[in-house]
């Protein structure tokens, strides 16, 4: 542990705060803290207020569990979205990723995690009841399961597919495979094997 005790206690605490962020090491945290020190009092106040009011301003969408500033998230509020397709993701941070892809025009459902027996996380810890209630309303025709492709993500998808199966509802799973534009030589063998298993006819 290198000592950086040449800073005042308040700056030390700021550095420690930045270090909690993903991808930030000791050196970067120090630079961020020093950069913030150069801000005007107004800038600091505004930024601090933003952080302090975050819990009251940002919550979960009542319908889908996505991040929302109001009762409903921007996706659920948008009448142009296809109400018959719901894409199921593990966490809210996956919604903007799929949004940017432009490949999904329907709604979302954020589970709030996945089934991880080794961490004691079971189906009841996820927003599965809420999803079932949405399906009960009868408007949904397709459920796209976009949980992760690792063991727990796959198992959660299998679990949902079995639990939510009902007439008139198509349940699909996003494909796993070779990144678009990637050279096969750079794909790891597990990805390539999955891609080969889920091959489809062409022409």
């Amino acid at each position: 542990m290198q000592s950086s005790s040449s800073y005042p206690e308040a700056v030390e605490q700021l550095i420690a705060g930045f270090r909690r962020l993903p991808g930030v090491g000791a050196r970067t945290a120090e630079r961020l803290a020093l950069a913030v020190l150069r801000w005007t009092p107004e800038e600091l106040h505004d930024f601090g207020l933003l952080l302090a009011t975050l819990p009251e301003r940002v919550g979960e969408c009542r319908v889908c569990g996505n991040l929302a500033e109001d009762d409903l998230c921007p996706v659920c509020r948008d009448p142009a979205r296809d109400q018959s397709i719901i894409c199921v993701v593990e966490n809210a941070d996956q919604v903007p990723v799929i949004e940017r892809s432009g490949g999904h025009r329907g709604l979302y459902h954020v589970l709030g995690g996945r089934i991880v027996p080794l961490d004691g996380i079971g189906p009841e810890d996820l927003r599965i009841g809420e999803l079932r209630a949405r399906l009960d309303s009868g408007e949904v025709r397709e459920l796209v399961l976009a949980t992760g492709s690792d063991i727990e993500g796959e198992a959660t998808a299998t679990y949902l597919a079995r639990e939510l199966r009902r007439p008139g509802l198509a349940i699909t799973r996003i494909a796993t495979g070779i990144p678009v534009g990637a050279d096969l030589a750079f794909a790891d063998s597990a990805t390539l094997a999955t891609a080969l298993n889920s091959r489809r006819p062409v022409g």
Partner: protein
Amino acid sequence: MSILHQLRLRGFRNYSRLDMSFRPGVNLLVGGNGQGKTNLLEAVYFLSLLRSFRTSRIAELCEWGRSSFFVGGRMGSSGGAAGTVGLAVGVGKVRRMRVDGRRIHRASEFIDKFHCVALVPEDIHLIRGPAAERRRFLDILLSQADRRYLHVLGGYKRLLKSRNAMLRNSGRFGLSAIAAFDEQLLRAGAALIGARARLQERLKASVVGEWKGLSEGPGGELSVEYKSMLRQGEHCEDSEADMIETYRRMLADTVDQDLKEGWTRVGPHRDDLLIFLDGRKLSAFGSEGQCRRAALALRLASIQFLSRSESVKVVVLVDDVLGELDLERRMRFGERLSACAQVLLALTEVPDWLPRGPAATYNVGNGAVIRVQG
């Protein structure tokens, strides 16, 4: 797929600092007991498999008083060096793995860089030890031959642990969550069983000849049989789809009992490789000498398995396994070793049973190695 040209050790067992090179063919390591011959073989083995053949506690590999060590190697074809592998290990944990200077994170990217088979006294556990020893033997061999096996094995282990965790906490997870994980468990488990069964066929074919070479007189017939509760008898040709169905049924039949006891009783984690001499179980009836020679025959058969393709070179590490062999058997064994791409042979004195002079001879003493020939 290559042989070892150079070895670098820092703080490994009794080697504070060692840089040495090896030749293709037989490399003779000569020295008294306790001088560090086995430590050298152990370091090379670690470089290949990230484990020791002597201990499961990696911290023991550190030089006395240190908390980390480094093992590095330069590998290549028998013509010249082509790649490097480096491992920095802290107490009990691999900290950094590098292949050709590039940092890698998964053991599975490491394990097929070069293939080692160790012939060591501890091999007796293959015969006398619990079934887990023989499963590990199969698993290591299959992982060396195909890194995808290691990937599936890692997945299976996680799935099994997850299932057991759900069995012990069934109120929270329920049968449908267990069933969802079972879908993957079945597939991974069936793939492992299929691969092990195919390996058994290969071993069965070559172990007979290897045993003859090590035996005096008729010596009987050594055979191996992979035993899995998911394969009835000898039906190796069972399709994987059939096996998955059997597996599914057996898991369903036993889930109540599993729930009661909190562990999974069906699957490849309970399999065994049975070893017979003339149809009788060797572990129960064999003499110490027979068991040691059978273990040696299994190791030689696994060299055959790994060498099945021209491009694969196997590095053979030999330590103190000749006690059971008379001169004629030793000479046959020497012939066998001479045919290998590279052998590191540890002995207390220069042997009289090698068909020709070694490629290189080293004196090993007190944490230092000096090349005296080659």
